[in-house]
């Protein structure tokens, strides 16, 4: 939708004391989201509730579907209709969405999926915290692909990363997942919403060629094809099958190689631009805690506590979880004695760190299995025990 009047972000500029779930919804609106298709599920329901109140006020659309399969399908369709679109769910719903997230990857459809994680597997712990969908976000759909996933650790960052998620989805034409968790979703903190002029918005590239010559999957040099919207005069064609630049199914190894290589490379070659990290006290650190989401709040507390005890601890937070910051972690591993990972699962990020480190430093996972978050004290005690 090129008419900017319709896309004008609705921003409630000012200071609020509010929850992560409301902040991610407000951030999505500020990013220009005009369509929410979803099936409410604890602990994400407040996102849907807030969008159901706000979207009709700005001529946007909120649809509650019969399930998560329909919900994710609807946001892909809405995106091809020109609306920035999103859904919000939790583990069980995310599982149902995975097939169509693959369709979104193959059809290069910008959209945002919020997953407020709870303890799993299955229905697990509906009302309690988890961080167990990290690998699912990376590999859950079948086939070979690259994906973008972000993980906020504060109410403010839920707002900020919602905008970042829409911008990344539009820029790279890929579904972007925001991996929140129950504690971040329900926690209240100060949220500052800046003036809309201060918010940077990225919109998908539009084709500029003649409609009759247009090849919908012919990428520019940046490996990303401009995206026409249905109704603008260009041919719009989408298929989950392997396709050529025309968007026609061509089912052979050569076409597959060209297409999949480009889908992988458009993310891989831009890793440095996509990946965002927070570093704290790393300069002289002998021990590093790597963390993300709510676990990182305990990890940072643990670093402060460890420093008081004379332990040279530092901290690296993954704001972007996928793509994974292999190079940064490899560099760290060469100068520190040990790396610790705090996460509320049995080692999903630890596995990635081990891969990146290639045995160059010791790697210890400090795990909770869902339902509770680490405390800084228990992290420090565990570090002391393991470095003895």
């Amino acid at each position, binding site marked *: 939708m090129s008419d900017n009047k319709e896309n004008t972000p609705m921003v409630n500029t000012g200071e609020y004391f509010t929850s992560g779930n409301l902040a991610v919804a407000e951030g999505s609106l500020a990013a220009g989201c005009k369509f929410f298709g979803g099936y409410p599920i604890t602990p994400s329901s407040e996102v849907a509730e807030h969008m159901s109140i706000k979207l009709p006020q700005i001529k946007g659309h909120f649809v509650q579907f019969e399930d998560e399969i329909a919900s994710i399908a609807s946001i892909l369709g809405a995106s091809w209709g020109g609306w920035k679109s999103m859904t919000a769910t939790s583990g069980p719903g995310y599982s149902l969405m995975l097939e169509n997230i693959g369709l979104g990857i193959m059809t290069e459809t910008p959209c945002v999926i919020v997953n407020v994680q709870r303890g799993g597997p299955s229905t697990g712990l509906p*009302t309690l915290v988890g961080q167990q969908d990290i690998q699912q976000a990376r590999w859950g759909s079948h086939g070979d692909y690259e994906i973008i996933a972000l993980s906020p650790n504060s109410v403010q960052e839920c707002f900020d990363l919602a905008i970042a998620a829409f911008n990344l989805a539009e820029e790279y034409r890929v579904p972007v997942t925001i991996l929140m968790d129950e504690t971040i979703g*329900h926690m209240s*903190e*100060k949220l500052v919403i800046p003036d809309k002029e201060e918010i940077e918005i990225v919109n998908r590239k539009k084709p500029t060629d003649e409609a009759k010559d247009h090849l919908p999957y012919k990428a520019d040099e940046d490996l990303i094809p401009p995206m026409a919207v249905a109704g603008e005069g260009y041919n719009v064609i989408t298929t989950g099958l392997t396709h050529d630049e025309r968007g026609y199914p061509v089912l052979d190894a050569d076409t597959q190689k060209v297409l999949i290589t480009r889908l992988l490379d458009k993310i891989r070659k831009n890793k440095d631009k996509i990946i965002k990290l927070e570093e704290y006290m790393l300069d002289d650190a002998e021990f590093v805690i790597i963390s993300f989401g709510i676990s990182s709040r305990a990890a940072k507390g643990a670093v402060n506590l460890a420093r008081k005890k004379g332990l040279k601890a530092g901290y690296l937070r993954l704001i972007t979880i996928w793509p994974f910051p292999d190079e940064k972690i490899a560099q760290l591993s060469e100068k520190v004695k040990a790396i610790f990972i705090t996460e509320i699962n049995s080692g999903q990020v630890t596995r990635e760190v081990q891969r990146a480190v290639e045995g160059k430093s010791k790697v210890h996972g400090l795990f909770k299995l869902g339902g509770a978050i680490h405390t*800084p004290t228990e992290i420090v005690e565990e570090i002391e025990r393991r470095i003895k």
Partner: protein
Amino acid sequence: MSDRIEIRFAGFGGQGIALMGRLVGEVISLHEKGKHSVMTQSYGPESRGGASSCDVVIDTQIIDYPKATEFDYFVVMSEEAYHKYIPRLKEGGIIFVEENLVTLDDQSKKASKIYKIPATEIAETLGSRLYANIAMLGFVCANTDLFSDEDFITVMKAKVRARFIEKNLVAFEKGKNHK
């Protein structure tokens, strides 16, 4: 240095425990200069009864760990919640207790100060025990330096449903004046 203060509010579902935390958190976060606050709550089917609790953490620095671990203040409105959480009161911490709903035992002796109020009884004189949480907050406001009454009233007026504001204001005053 950190000036971290941890408050645990606890009672049973339906008493408006989470609202207490949200109000206090907002007053401090948006109205008390130079202070940050985070509110976290136990989340589950508590509005149908059972134990309910929430934490407000206050600091002059950005708050890393958002939950209370050793409470500086323990605001308790049910017996069950008292027994569940009293072990985590800091040595020398302060207790605010709904005196008709909680029987204190020896564990409360580590508190440096115990403030008692019949918050539910006060609320009932206003027609509903629903106002007990606000009466308790008036009592907390009067006996601590945590937040000012004016700021609290500003926030409460904006957050509480219009038809409940007037009675809540009276409940807050009564709590504040309780000796």
